[in-house]
């Protein structure tokens, strides 16, 4: 089973480059998580407002689709944060 579900490969990448990449991902996490969280709150507020019922069905679908997109992005960024932090802590 472990031969099918292999979660880690090592092909000789040096730890300083892995660490640099982790720090870069941590910076990207901060930027994108803020962006997605801002958009998520903005769209949720819009859905709850009375204005939402007056826009076309196509636009309502679009707004709901956005909220799903930002949610997926934030959940995935959680894994990026976990991966970055574990790699950074492992380096010291």
């Amino acid at each position, binding site marked *: 089973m472990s031969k*099918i*579900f*292999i*979660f*880690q*490969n*090592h*092909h*000789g*990448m040096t730890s300083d*480059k*892995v660490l640099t*990449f*982790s720090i870069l*991902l941590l910076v*990207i996490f901060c930027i994108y998580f803020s962006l*997605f969280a801002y958009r998520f709150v903005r769209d949720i507020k819009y859905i709850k407002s009375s204005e939402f019922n007056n826009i*076309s*069905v*196509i636009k309502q*679908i*679009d707004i709901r*689709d*956005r909220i*799903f*997109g*930002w949610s*997926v*992005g934030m*959940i*995935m960024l959680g*894994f*990026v944060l976990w*991966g970055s932090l574990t*790699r950074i802590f492992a380096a010291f």
Partner: protein
Amino acid sequence: MAGIINPANIFTSTRLIVLPLVVYAAYKNYHLMAVTIIAYSGVVDLLDGFVARKFNCTSRFGEMLDAISDASLFLVGLLAAVAFKYSDPVPAFLLLGLGAFNAAGRVIFIKKTGVITNFRSYASEVLGGFTFWVLVAQYLDWYANAGLWLLSFFTFIVIIHDYYRILTYPVDLLKMEEGKNE
């Protein structure tokens, strides 16, 4: 022909030209060279729309070339990573299969609506961004396989969502809106 050869398309097509270098870098185990080429491709992807607007040469062909370049980068980058043992074949082929299934949804949407309006899925666009970083992670030995498994899982979730949207989309209302815009 004059519509096809323009600054934006030349700029985008450099992404296809550099693809063999990714395979070469993977073969020679030049991690940073592979990452640099993938990063170059990512930067060009971000800028080509701007170049097209700046030179006033936006076109359907350009959009198609951009999509083909995206798919080619991921396909070639991931296959090279599998071939030269950077990543495992199971999650890599699972992800490629899910990507193809996701693309088929767009074709169904175009056939269903009869208008060449790309089905815009924000979740798919978010996944596209993550795909780029997962590809870089393959060459940097940064949770390479875990990244592929996770991306496959989220791609599966997004495919369920997108197919539901595609199959239940109010086509009549979309056509009415298209008519108004024309």
